[in-house]
């Protein structure tokens, strides 16, 4: 998004990236940076670390609601499809049995519920995460490739109102970061 901003109002760099050697350091740093009032902060880890997400203020995911919606849509859609096709437009009288034979419709309804919910879970997750995203500034730091191995990163965006190139750098270095580097746009 920041790439679309007017060049004059765009900060000169994307932000500052601090590298940590251990997850404990990152967890401590996340708490400290959030307490210091920074909000445009993101951490990058090789595996999910709940403490970091919570330290940075990610408490509730919107995903469960989306999945519930997907499941309801799938289930209702599945039942409606059967009701409409078997009762309304293509009724078949087989030995005088009721055309609205709902017990027989349970299985496809169930499967459609699961399908709708699963599709909502996957595509909802990608949507909430803004993926696919072909470009992101953090990849401009060569050492960031280690984020998918055994290094832990914390990025403070320059757009954060509290951001100050020198002040923030000092804060990050003081948090036991092994390296602090600038992130180009």
């Amino acid at each position, binding site marked *: 998004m920041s790439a679309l901003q007017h060049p004059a109002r765009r900060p000169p760099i994307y932000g500052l990236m601090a590298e940590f050697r251990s*997850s*404990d350091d990152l*967890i401590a740093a*996340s708490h400290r940076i959030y307490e210091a009032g920074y909000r445009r902060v*993101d*951490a*990058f*880890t*090789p*595996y*999910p*670390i*709940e*403490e*970091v*997400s919570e330290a*940075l203020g990610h408490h509730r*995911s919107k*995903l*469960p609601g989306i*999945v519930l919606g997907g*499941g309801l849509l799938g289930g209702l859609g*599945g039942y409606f499809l*059967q009701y409409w*096709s*078997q009762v309304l*437009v*293509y009724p078949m009288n087989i030995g005088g049995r009721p055309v609205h034979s709902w017990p*027989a*419709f349970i*299985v*496809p309804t*169930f*499967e*459609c519920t*699961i*399908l709708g*919910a*699963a*599709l909502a*879970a*996957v595509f*909802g*997750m990608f949507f909430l*995460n803004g*993926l*696919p*995203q*072909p*470009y*992101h500034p*953090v*990849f401009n730091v060569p050492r*960031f*490739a*280690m*984020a*998918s*191995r*055994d290094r832990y990163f914390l990025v403070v965006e320059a757009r954060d109102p509290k951001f100050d190139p020198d002040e923030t750098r000092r804060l990050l270095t003081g948090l036991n970061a092994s390296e602090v580097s600038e992130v180009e746009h």
Partner: protein
Amino acid sequence: MATLENGGLPAPLEKPYRPPIVAPGHTTASVTDKISEVVLQRTPKWWFFGFAASFSLLMVFLVSVTWLFVKGVGIWGVNWPIGWGFAIICFVWWIGIGHAGTLISAILLLLRQEWRTSINRFAEAMTLFAVACAGLYPVLHLGRPWLFYWLLPYPNTMNLWPQFRSPLIWDVFAVSTYATVSALFWYVGLVPDLATLRDRSSNRLAKVIYGFGAMGWRGSAAHWHNYETAYLLLAGLATPLVLSVHTVVSFDFAIGIVPGWHATIFPPYFVAGAIYAGFAMVLTLAIPLRHLFKLEDFITTRHLQNMGKVMLATGMIVVYGYMTELFFAWYSGNVYEMFMAWNRIFGPYRFHWYTLILCNAVVPQLLWLRRIRTSPLWLFAISMVVSVGMWLERFIIVITSLHRDFLPGSWGMYHGTIWDWGTFIGTIGLFLTLFFLFIRFLPTISIFEMRTIVPGSHGGEYTEVPR
């Protein structure tokens, strides 16, 4: 009392010792390197041999299917009274095998069985490929396979709709949902690992391809937060789904008023059989895989032993199913049901039944012995036996029930033709070909989940205190 030292509370229970899930000495870096190296290294020689053999079998499949398309289902052994031959036997066999993958990836995740982490990725791949093989059979069995889309509800100029009261249509919904959800689950699990491969491969083309697959994944804390939620929800959705799939498959039989099929025991008995056969296949794949890729550090004896235990437990449920079937036949007092049971044990297919009992009930009893459960060679052999046994079980269910039902005037015999066997062996080729491609190009073990279980990592809820 000694408990007073603990502030009056009872002393905490001592956890029984368990061997570690990952060999000692591994770190997040070493598991990353070791598993991605399998993909990024030069192709080992054995891979070409294995792939060539599998691909040849796949060609057998193409030949069989081509001839089927030219001549029709008459080239198979199916004829009245047995309209469901190899096609349905193999369909049930394959789809059953798939169930272990979802059990490992979803149910064991929800039950916090951490050892699943080393085997879930390739078990899920196995599920996908087994479902692909299974899905082919009903379509090929249609007679006019090119009109398979008539099974789906869609507005058409004929103004026809599928019969939603038929278990066969339930099957279409169950199997296609299962295939879709398994594929989604598998892909979601792969995304962070594809990002790892993107970051670690030096080849430009590989970087681009893995990069496409990773969709720009960067391991952001905000992303992981949604990702974990999605993964758990998918596991929660896949759990009832996998149980429903084989239940619906068993409805194909149980809804029909045929002696030997019309039984309430079918759904649980089928699901247990599916997991039994599936774990046998997971072991069949895991044992050579860990040896050839030298992944013994991750797929340890403890994993093999646990899988042996699951096989033993589900195998016993299946045996209980066999006994219940015989009991039902006797207790029903129904002459046709009783004859069906008699015919299975003493009729023309008795040797199939004896072999089935030997394979599924007798041989797996060896798994009670710890020495057998910890021996890869024994486990491999038993898994093979169980796979054969489970195939025979479906043969018995499909064939012995149909070949002598109510009227002796309409009795008959069934034997697979060379084209039946060709198609079956061919789907094994398809399965193995896909599996060889998978182990060559994608990480066979979930890297990011392995990082959470190495000692000292902050995997949160998945972490077990190392002892």
